[in-house]
């Protein structure tokens, strides 16, 4: 990035948000989407329990990663925190201000401080607006007149995100996917936010472009001290980007803690299974085989959030589940052996290390059946 240094430093920043200070807090945050049916008057027959009582805190300047599979409620959480959705229950506090049910007017100042980057760089930019209008729009709406004029600022922003300022008058379709995502980033930066909620910001991009955008976001965070809520399904990207990570499953946070603690010493069986399922390409030493990690294969897919399992929601796919798991919901607490701030919601947590186990866990009936019938690759190699 060849942006001049002064462009990166925004207008004087209020001193209130020092590093490490609590920026955003959610307590018992819940979103149930009602399912209406019946006749002649529709009534509530159930609810999609998209997010169900989660607590989280984002500090200024940090990246908080939210990871989970589809339907776990991570995107809904992002939309609740930016108040694109109204929470069913719980509270959201932004810098000591309760914004849980704040109206349009009350939200206006907060909206400019919390911005969002979306997944799809194709559909999240208005195709009929020029880049200049798209990026300058937020300033116009909020009546912000930066020094040197809005156009000057937009050109500055284009340069910050690594685009040519000359492209001010171009339309989104003239850009590639990666460049469009940069436009999305510039738009989010226009109001000098304190927090950016990035919902799968790179998953629609090609591998080689993903890294460009991830690096851009990291640079911006370092230079502008913006806090990120980084929502993604890709565990490796979340790990690369976040200092703290929360793992979600069916609307609940099942484990949260510092990055290293979560990735090296997962205590929740689900976190463990997720980590073992990530396919990874890494360089091999001459004698090494690619597939030497332990393997946990869960059965089936994630259950429906309309009718989640009782007790621990993961129990239907968990190899450790016992009666207690169905009867009692495990609280999200720090368990013995975890470092401070590492909370786990499990009755029968894993040992605080992944290296301890060498046996594969295969819950999938089809895999188990085939592997019993046919000698596995290891056995076949021994035979030959």
């Amino acid at each position, binding site marked *: 990035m060849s942006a001049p240094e002064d462009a990166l430093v925004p207008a004087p920043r209020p001193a209130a948000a020092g590093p490490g200070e609590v920026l955003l807090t959610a307590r018992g945050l819940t979103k149930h989407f009602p399912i209406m049916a019946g006749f002649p008057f529709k009534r509530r027959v159930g609810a999609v329990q998209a997010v169900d009582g989660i607590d989280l805190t984002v500090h200024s300047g940090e990246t908080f990663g939210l990871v989970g599979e589809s339907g776990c409620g991570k995107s809904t959480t992002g939309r609740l925190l930016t108040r694109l959705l109204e929470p069913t229950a719980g509270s959201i506090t932004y810098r000591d201000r309760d914004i849980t049910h704040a109206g349009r007017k009350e939200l206006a100042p907060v909206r400019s401080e919390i911005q969002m980057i979306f997944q799809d760089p194709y559909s999240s930019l208005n195709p009929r607006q020029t880049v200049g209008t798209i990026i300058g729009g937020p300033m116009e709406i909020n009546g912000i007149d930066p020094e040197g004029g809005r156009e000057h600022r937009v050109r500055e922003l284009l340069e910050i995100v690594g685009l040519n300022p000359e492209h001010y008058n171009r339309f989104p379709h003239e850009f590639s996917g990666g460049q469009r995502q940069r436009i999305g980033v510039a738009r989010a930066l226009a109001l000098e936010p304190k927090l950016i909620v990035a919902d799968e910001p790179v998953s629609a991009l090609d591998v080689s472009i993903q890294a460009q955008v991830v690096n851009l976001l990291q640079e911006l965070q370092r230079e502008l001290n913006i806090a990120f809520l980084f929502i993604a399904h890709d565990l490796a990207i979340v790990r690369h980007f976040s200092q703290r990570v929360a793992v979600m499953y069916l609307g609940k946070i099942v484990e949260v803690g510092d990055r290293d603690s979560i990735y090296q010493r997962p205590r929740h069986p689900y976190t463990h299974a997720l980590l073992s399922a990530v396919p990874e390409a890494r360089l091999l030493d001459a004698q090494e085989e690619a597939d030497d990690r332990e393997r946990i294969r*869960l059965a089936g897919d994630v259950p429906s959030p309309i009718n989640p399992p009782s007790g621990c929601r993961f129990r239907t796919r968990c190899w450790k589940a016992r009666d207690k798991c169905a009867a009692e919901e495990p609280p999200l607490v720090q368990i013995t052996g975890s470092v401070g701030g590492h909370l786990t919601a499990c009755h029968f947590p894993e040992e605080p290390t992944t290296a301890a186990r060498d046996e594969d866990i295969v819950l999938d009936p089809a895999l188990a059946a085939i592997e019993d019938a046919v000698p596995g690759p290891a056995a076949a190699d021994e035979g030959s």
Partner: protein
Amino acid sequence: MSTLTQPAGPPAPAASGPFLSVRDLYVRFATEDGVVKAVDDLSFDLERGRTLGIVGESGSGKSVTNLAVLGLHSPNYTTITGEILLDGDELTGAREKDLEKLRGNKMAMIFQDPLTSLSPYYTVGRQIAEPFVKHTGASKREGRRRAIEMLEKVGIPQPTLRVDDYPHQFSGGMRQRAMIAMALVCNPSLLIADEPTTALDVTVQAQILDLLKDLQQEFGSAIILITHDLGVVANTADELLVMYAGRAVERGTVKEILTEPHHPYTWGLLGSMPRLTASVEEPLTPIPGTPPSLLAPPSGCPFHPRCGFVSEVGGTRCQDERPTLAPGRAAACHLSPEQKHTLFTEQIKPRLG
């Protein structure tokens, strides 16, 4: 490289040469903007029981190649030249009627999105049984029995009940299992899986990849696994073909390529991906720029506008001369083997370590 065409008349002997052999394949699409050179001089071989991973980004030609193997491109807009030999039979220019007999029978395909790739209008059982009934001449009743058997094999619980369900009543992972059941129903010798797990969750992806691997053990099919994710092929494939801008840029076994990749593009791919075990202090090393347009691909080496090692080659060789991909373990790059080795061990490997 043989340019023999099969003599008409008696069927070719089956055992000579590799099971699937693609030679000098070109695929071009006529569009309003010009001719898209989607696949440009591609050759590869695949033996029975082996898995070939084809890795590339969008527009690299990986899917186009495999649709060409099955003959699924519309002849109105597509020109295909070169040879595709399946078990000795020439597939390029083959009659649609003959291809229909092979598709779903000797060669089958699994697609990326199991929701849109299964017909919403017919039951899962019927869609699985259909190719079986067509290719083996079995009765509808036998077809249904076979569908149940296949559903059981791919791990659908209560297959006798689920056989009469419609695809939308299945979850994402189950749909992909049904898709696999459909592809394997006639014991195909060649199975092409086009991004089979991209639309699925991580835990389900792992199940499906394992399932494919295990089923291969049982059926002995050759598999082509197309993906953008090197991680997916790392544990699943035997051989690897890296594609860029419609061309193969590197070929080798998975072991060889992951031990010492030769092509700067492969280095770039590896450097772009964050890994669970890498240091988080180290920033990612993305490939600069964007993939080229296939309407007017760059001259010489198509990767040269994004390559950081053009100066190592010297002169304008990368811009002018197209590097070839030698048979066997090879990379289509003008760097000398020594240069590649030195650059890799001194610059690339420490960063990826």
